[in-house]
């Protein structure tokens, strides 16, 4: 049923599409994060802005991707932007929610301690709030990466210069092998991103209780021992 010969003949093309897929996704993830970070900071500093920002981003997220991709074609034609603008818009709601949740997760007493000891606003943001918000930010990145990789696939409907693995899905609707390569490739990339950010999340937070316990389980000591009472 699977045409292995076709696959063997198209290894360079498949690798090329994998690179394109990652490129499209990476650009959207980075740009989307930058924009969302700004929006999230605004929402945290000026709380009334949050429902508005989250509401708008949420509405964007509900627009079907096929419709959103096509709607930009008459306006800006076919270019990298045609793919990236929708991709970026879709990341916003995931990112903003997670970044705001990250800042909200910083305990009030930690902020008060920071203020009381004489951190300036900027110092507090950089040295206290950001590091503590990182776990939820990376969690957002993880979800956004999976979602974006899926959406890149759909951009294959815009034509042969788009889609990453999605290109194979849309090229010849009756050729099962090619469609399968496109689908499996997309899914593999998504799983890979998920795993990667999962590891990153743990690496970036050596201090969290969960990681501390994992570390101790590894070295064969129980957490109870290490946190023995004074």
């Amino acid at each position: 049923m699977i045409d292995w010969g076709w696959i063997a003949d198209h290894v360079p093309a498949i690798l090329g599409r994998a690179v394109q897929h990652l490129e499209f996704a990476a650009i959207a993830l980075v740009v989307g994060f930058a924009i969302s970070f700004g929006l999230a900071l605004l929402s945290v500093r000026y709380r009334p802005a949050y429902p508005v920002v989250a509401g708008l981003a949420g509405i964007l997220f509900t627009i079907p991707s096929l419709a959103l991709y096509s709607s930009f074609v008459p306006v800006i034609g076919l270019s990298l932007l045609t793919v990236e603008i929708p991709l970026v818009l879709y990341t916003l709601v995931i990112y903003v929610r997670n970044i705001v949740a990250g800042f909200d997760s910083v305990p009030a007493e930690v902020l008060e301690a920071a203020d009381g000891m004489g951190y300036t606003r900027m110092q507090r943001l950089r040295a206290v709030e950001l590091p503590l918000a990182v776990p939820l930010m990376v969690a957002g990145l993880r979800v956004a990466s999976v979602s974006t990789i899926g959406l890149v696939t759909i951009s294959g409907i815009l034509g042969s210069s788009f889609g990453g693995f999605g290109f194979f899905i849309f090229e010849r609707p009756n050729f099962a092998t090619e469609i399968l390569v496109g689908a499996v490739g997309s899914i593999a990339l998504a799983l890979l991103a998920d795993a990667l950010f999962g590891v990153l999340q743990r690496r970036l937070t050596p201090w969290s209780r969960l990681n501390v316990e994992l570390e101790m389980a590894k070295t064969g000591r129980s957490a109870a021992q290490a946190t023995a009472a004074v």
Partner: protein
Amino acid sequence: MATAESVVFEHVTKRYGVAEARREAAAGRLPAAVDDLSFEVPAGRICVLVGPSGCGKTTSLKMVNRLIEPTSGRILIGGEDVATRDVIALRRSIGYVIQQVGLFPHQTVGENVETVTRLLGWAPERRRARSDELLELVGLDPSRYATRYPSQLSGGERQRVGVARALAADPPVLLMDEPFGAVDPIVRERLQNELLHLQDQLAKTILFVTHDIDEAIKMGDLVAVMQAGGHLAQFAPPAEILANPASDFVARFVGADRGLKRLALTRVNELDLMAPVTASPGEDAAEARRRALADPFPWLLLVDAMRRPLGWVEEADIPTSGNLTEELASAMSPLLDRRTTLKDALARLIEAEVQAGVVTDARGAVIGLVTAEMIFDWSRRTAEEARASEGPTRETAS
């Protein structure tokens, strides 16, 4: 070492409220969280702010390092109005221990303690040395603890780190908001003792918040009892608060057992101890008997060559001739170290069902006797004295 500085509250009032409520506040229509608070804490003393929940203790504390700005009045540190100082520099010069400790979870214990010295731009080696020194001071071995994260500490250890962090830049003034609130009574007692011990060396000016009157009495050189609405009900040394509460509120707040609490503030060596008739084994019995009979407390206390007590000889048991022997000793009173509190001394006497306890010095030698009656007399006399000298510290209850 930075010298301590006095802290003075001058008619400090705080009314919380949003911007447009300010006019209301000015018109005195918003209830105050802190109402016309005035007191002075001399340099190097511990002042405890105590009172029921919501009476404005935390608010008062936070106005010192300007986490909260007073609605009116001013606070002086070392004679200087805090409002005129740069707020960031001010906070870095004040040690602050917050109620829930608030260690930075993403930083190691060492990094936490280095916080203020880092902000002040100390060189890394100097910060490190200071942090190790402080961890040792609060009883945490730096080689074991400096690289741990707060999530790897017990509650008591965290509170110690919180205190070490507040002391990092050797601030002349320390603010402590229920610093030992989150630990069990046994650990709390140990931390209290350690802080008092530290304070002997540091002599900081400390504003200490608690809602526990026993902690206030134990820790404070001065105690500010606060009342709902942010009123200062009484500001005085603990002994005076107990002996002479300024109002019914204070009396109720310190509790019906305030008499007993006063006993816990005084040690037996502060009383005029009774001198027992003593003699050592081998001495002439007849002469000792004559001395014992001449005493209002006609018992003989046998002591060894170092004057350490061996036991009592009842009047009837003292031989009329020959020498005293150790076997004559029939009973022994509770031995009380000279630093025993009157409260503990009384408890020991009741427990042993005897009238008198033998007070000994550090080497165990007899210094005198204390009786239950002497303790009652002391209590009555000092309470009367306190009432007689209605001092300027007494606030009239309005």
